[in-house]
């Protein structure tokens, strides 16, 4: 297994955001975490990438304990993420935002960069080449020199995905990548997520509200409710799970996929 979340709990004051959640993610999987608002989904992502420290439990990446590491160390180990509310440098161009995403992969020090030729120059070319691969992949060739703040919302989300990809992650954490998008933009984004997973074998943990998308693209789905995991399995298993139906719909039963739209 690639990523192992072992019985983590996290409380904020009196609120138990996450209790005793375990989740195992295998290499190359797309795992979705779903649940009602306030179920603790984003908290789980924050516990993985080191924004929060769990009160109890551990998070292991290929056997390395991430629990006590800073977010930048976790990123350097290959865990990248995007945010619910886009976190880009709005005044900077798409290209510069993506190059910044390479930051943790940059080796040359300040002095070497200042001198520029030799290793620093070779490194810069290599980083640019990698960023160009991503630009090609996400089909944003026409946006290179555009300030990200001026882009349409759906394109900003795409650039943010690109910025996360620039890190060459082994695990990609996506927090509502399709939030606020129209149907066409959602379909494009779903396509990109599948392509990232296929082309670069990137493992993906996804939080998403749009149930049809989740059920279409996930290999496995974990369901949180009130900070607890109440189900974990293939989309079909989860859809049929009585606990899930109850959490989403109260007592009146019905198929999840239909009712949440």
């Amino acid at each position, binding site marked *: 297994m690639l990523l192992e979340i072992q019985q983590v709990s996290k409380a904020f004051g009196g609120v138990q955001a996450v209790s005793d959640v375990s989740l195992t993610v295998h290499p190359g999987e797309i795992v979705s975490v779903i649940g009602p608002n306030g179920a603790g989904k984003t908290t789980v992502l924050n516990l993985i990438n080191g924004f929060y420290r769990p009160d109890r439990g551990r998070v292991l990446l290929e056997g390395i304990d991430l629990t006590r590491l800073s977010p930048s160390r976790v990123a350097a180990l290959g865990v990248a993420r995007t945010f619910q509310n886009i976190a880009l440098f709005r005044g900077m161009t798409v290209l510069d935002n993506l190059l910044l995403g390479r930051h943790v992969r940059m080796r040359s020090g300040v002095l070497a960069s200042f001198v520029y030729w030799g290793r620093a120059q070779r490194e810069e070319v290599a980083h640019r*080449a990698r960023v160009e691969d991503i*630009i*090609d992949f996400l089909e944003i*060739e*026409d946006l290179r020199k555009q300030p990200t703040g001026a882009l349409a919302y759906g394109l900003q989300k795409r650039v943010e995905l690109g910025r996360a990809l620039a890190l060459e992650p082994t695990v990609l954490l996506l927090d509502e990548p399709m939030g606020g998008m129209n*149907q*066409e933009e959602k*379909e494009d984004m779903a396509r990109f997520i599948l392509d990232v997973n*296929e*082309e670069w074998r990137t493992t993906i943990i996804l939080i998403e509200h749009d149930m049809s998308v989740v059920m279409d693209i996930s290999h496995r789905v974990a369901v949180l409710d009130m900070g607890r995991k109440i189900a974990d399995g293939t989309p079909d298993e989860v859809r049929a799970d009585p606990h899930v139906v109850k959490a989403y719909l109260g007592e009146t039963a019905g198929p999840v996929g239909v009712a949440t739209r």
Partner: protein
Amino acid sequence: MSATGVGPVAGPSGLRADTLPKFVVERTRANPRRPAMREREKGIWREYTRGDVLDRVGAIALGLAALGLKRGDKVAVISGNRPEAVWTIYATQVAGGVPVPVYQDAIAKEVQFVVDHSEARFVLAEDQEQVDKLLEARGGLPRVERVFFDDPKGLRHYARGWLEPLTDLMARGREAARRFPGLFDELVAAGRSDDVALISYTSGTTGLPKGAMLTHANMIIGARQFLERERVDEGDELVSSLPLAWLGETAWSIALAGVRGLVVNFPEKPETVLPNLREIGPHVVLAPPRIWENSHSEILVRIEDSTWLKRWIFRHFMPIGEEVARRKMEGRPIPRSLRLRWLIGELLLYAPLRDQRGARRMRYAFTGGAPLAPEIILFYRGIGVNLKQIYGQTENCAFCCGQSDDAVKLGTVGRPYPGVELRLTDEGEIVTRGRTVFAGYYKNPEATRGAVRDGWLHSGDAGLLDPDGHLVVVDRLKDVTRLADGTTLAPQFLENKLKFSPYIREAMVVGQGRPFVAAMINIDMANVGKWAERRNLPYTTYADLAQKPEVYDLVLREVERANRDLPEPTRIRRYLLLPKELDPDDEEITRTRKLRRGVIAERYAPFIDAFYDGRTEVGVATRITYEDGRTATIHATVAIRAVGEATGSGSVSARA
């Protein structure tokens, strides 16, 4: 066949070639290291020499031969402007096959029709999007044996067999080249000038597309006739950015480029054409009117958005540029004071604008495929772009009439090229004869008999010849409109006058058998949207924006401007703004953006009736097709305005 003008196929260029592949081979053997193609990929221009191109063409050609492609077999090509698509077109010709380019934005149903009707055995598909269409249509494509794809992204888990990467085909071809070293040359040598070089499916404003068969002789002579009048040097740069399924594009980036040895540049993607154009600085350009119209609108809107100083410079010097251009065209002298002011304009406005639009070293630019408003031609000539009209049909290889540098007359498309015989029938239809007239429609002899009678190709266009022998294209013969009082008018002429406005994207003028002329107008979403933002005018969708009274006022001014130089009886009296854009997916407009008048008149019949019964608004339900093929119906109330009085606005609601 005509005995005038251009002689034998090969001609005096020093090359003996009588097929397009022979030109490519001979030019490569002479100078293998000269650049032939450039592609902008991952942010840099990647160059292919003539030797590189011939190597790829050879690999694909022998790969096709190894799969059993026989002489006359068809290969469909569904791709954007990429070197691989052009290699495959040449390679198919080398192997004795016939390439059939397909519009890459066609929907699955249309792709299926063309691929199946052409009986293509193989298909080149650019990427996953095209492969998905073919998979969707596979049940209706029994003759397609294999689909080669170029860009493998997203196709990793698709089953192989029917699908195969282009690189595998090329590897097969290289293997064949090792085993049969003389095969490539034999294949090239076997080609004959009257072989079909290309089948170009015309989008047609009525009925199903028809596959026009063009021979190597047609295409080579077409290019050579053009070269007799226009200077194009070996090694000149051109940019390939229009659909390869449009014959105008193949006539340039395949025939003219192959015959003359030009460097063909492929932009990164359709959205980057303008910056890429600027990097290349092509010597010659051909583009259909909509490209010139869009570019002109964009310039006007950007000027509107810039500083007062730039606006002043533009408003002051643009009329000077146009005045000088007009005097040059009419051969009138240019007074010294005007020349001086023009020089200042050249420094401040014309040269910077030309540089902006990638026209820095452009010798000339052509517009063709449909008429372009004289105002727009004058605008470009005013900033020093030598923009000229060219006229022709797919069926006579696109180059039939064109303006020469010393005799550009606004409103005409110039004189016939050397070797083209042109006359008008008694009904006023433009007919042509010559060696560029095609070999017929594929599997449609009836349509061929309708188009070519006694050797004359009937264009379906109504025309006039002015005293100097310049052709004036009036409109489609069947579209020429007669009002109730007998006044005749050419709708396209009025529509182009309207489309001169940056705020109007499409327009359809009606009036057949009616008392006056009326217009249904599509606003330009981008430009009107910007205009609305500047005025803090809130709007939600296209339909909402189009029904704002303020937008009606804006368009009213444009209609009045268009009316200004029209004779009284043909002026537009009433207009409305359509609640949706005319869309090729709804079959309202062709992929080359020509109106399908029959479809529109039928679909919007209530609008047209409402023009003439004095109503000020009309309720209507229109069907629209989403990208994914789902359909929905829009219920709208659309306002009708009379030109010269102000009335209400409409409202719109959508229901799936």
